[in-house]
């Protein structure tokens, strides 16, 4: 176990890389996923079709394929974001994670919209709100509440999926682990345990965060009822 103590900084940098990837991918996929969900319930058949095609395409494609495509093929197409190659690879990895995760976020939000009682939308329409306001003021805020638990498991999957970014020249926990394994051939099991424990800690932190959010949203609702 000495190897873990000696290499705490490597685990720390690996974990930080994972957290940074997770943070930007969460932000991106929440935005794109919500937009796609709006497309999928919109009155325009064309937009609905776009949403459906996107979701079916990206949900059925392996994340590793999307990741490797971004890293190997986007440079061929001269699609670049920065000069700095480290940031460039991170941007590709985040792009792949966002493209993949958005389809799951979209489906979670869409089924969240379905859990909002019909009366809510009817009441909103009855007081004369247009479609955009029915969605943004009445239906979506309630849908988000119903969406928190499934969104929690999507984010949990996203946290684990950041490991695929190790195939895209990103420094995160798996890359850190592979480096340590190569340097410490006699303490492989300890390195594996260290990596697993770090993932468990990150997952627990995420779980606690989702729990807090859930309780906060619940309190809001109770406040509104009183």
């Amino acid at each position, binding site marked *: 176990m000495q190897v873990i103590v000696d290499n705490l900084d490597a685990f720390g940098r690996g974990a930080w890389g994972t957290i940074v990837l997770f943070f930007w991918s969460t932000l991106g996929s929440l935005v794109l996923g919500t937009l796609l969900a709006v*497309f*999928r*319930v*919109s*009155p*325009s058949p*064309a937009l609905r079709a*776009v949403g459906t095609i996107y979701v*079916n395409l990206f949900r*059925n*494609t*392996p*994340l*590793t*394929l999307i990741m*490797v*495509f971004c890293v*190997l*093929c986007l440079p*061929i*197409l*001269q699609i670049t974001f920065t000069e700095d190659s480290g940031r460039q690879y991170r941007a590709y990895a985040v792009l792949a994670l966002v493209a993949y995760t958005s389809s*799951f976020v979209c*489906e*979670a939000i*869409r089924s969240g*919209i*379905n859990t*909002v009682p*019909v009366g809510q*939308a*009817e009441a909103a*329409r009855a007081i004369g709100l247009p*479609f955009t306001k*029915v*969605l943004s003021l009445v*239906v979506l805020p309630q849908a988000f509440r119903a969406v928190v*638990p*499934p969104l*929690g*498991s*999507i984010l*949990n*999957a996203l946290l*684990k999926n950041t*490991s*695929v970014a*190790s*195939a895209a020249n990103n420094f995160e926990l*798996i890359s850190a*682990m*592979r480096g340590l*394994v190569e340097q410490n051939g006699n303490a*492989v099991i300890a*390195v*594996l345990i260290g*990596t*697993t424990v770090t*993932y*468990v800690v990150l997952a627990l932190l995420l779980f606690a965060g989702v729990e807090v959010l859930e309780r906060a949203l619940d309190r809001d609702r109770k406040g509104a009822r009183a």
Partner: protein
Amino acid sequence: MSSRIDSVLYDAPGPRARRLNAVLTVVGVLVIAAVVGWVVWKLEAAGQFSASLWSPFTYSDIQTQLAAAWWETMKVALTAIALSIVLGAVLAAGRLSTSAALRRVAATLVTLFRTPPVLLLMFWFFYGARGQIPLFWCAVLGLTIYNGAFLAEILRAGVQALPKGQAEAGLAIGLTPGQVLWTVQLPQAVRSMLPSLVSQIVVILKDTALAYIIGYSELLRWGQQAGSFYFNLIPAFIVIAVVYVGTNMVISALAKVLERRMSTHTAARVTPQAATAQAGAAA
């Protein structure tokens, strides 16, 4: 179904709304067409539409290789699916057992198995055994452990959603709790949870691509190597993406047929929503 709320979000459109919808549709389609057009323009600018890049896929030996690579992926997927169904059923039986100790052990294993990334589990077998385990089995075992835990949770949720009377009737005619679980509850849970089970199977199929990272030669690796060899990476990736998406869609379609056939045998209707929320959208 979405139709329930879709129809209530907006009225049957009047003339003004129809005009607005038409405008929005046009704007939306234009924006999306612009995005697609930009991608096509980028592809064209990089010369990706030239026939020489695509023609290798018309050669019969390339097609044979593609089929062989696809079969490598399917071998990993099918083995992992079979093993994780077994593991899932055993873990679910453990979590539903009458022995508190067994329940605790199974619950711990489930949590342990599904917290780390699949990729890390594969590396456990790869590095942990110092390369003694063939790459095929590193991939299969990693997938099995991870997805077995998820399948266990799906099955458990399915059993718990069954009406109490099912287990009570089984016990009343003298079956042991174990017999009730294996002959009465689990078969019904499998039928009612079929949608969630199938999406987990699609997850397994997609995650076989992770074997690329530990260095196993499957579809993705073949695509990357063929693409490097013929200098047609982008067409190669598009071709294998089509193969993956096609395979997954066929599985989903088969599942729908199976579901329709099986639904007539289900004693109890169970809504999979609660369980799906628990099982989550995994990797």
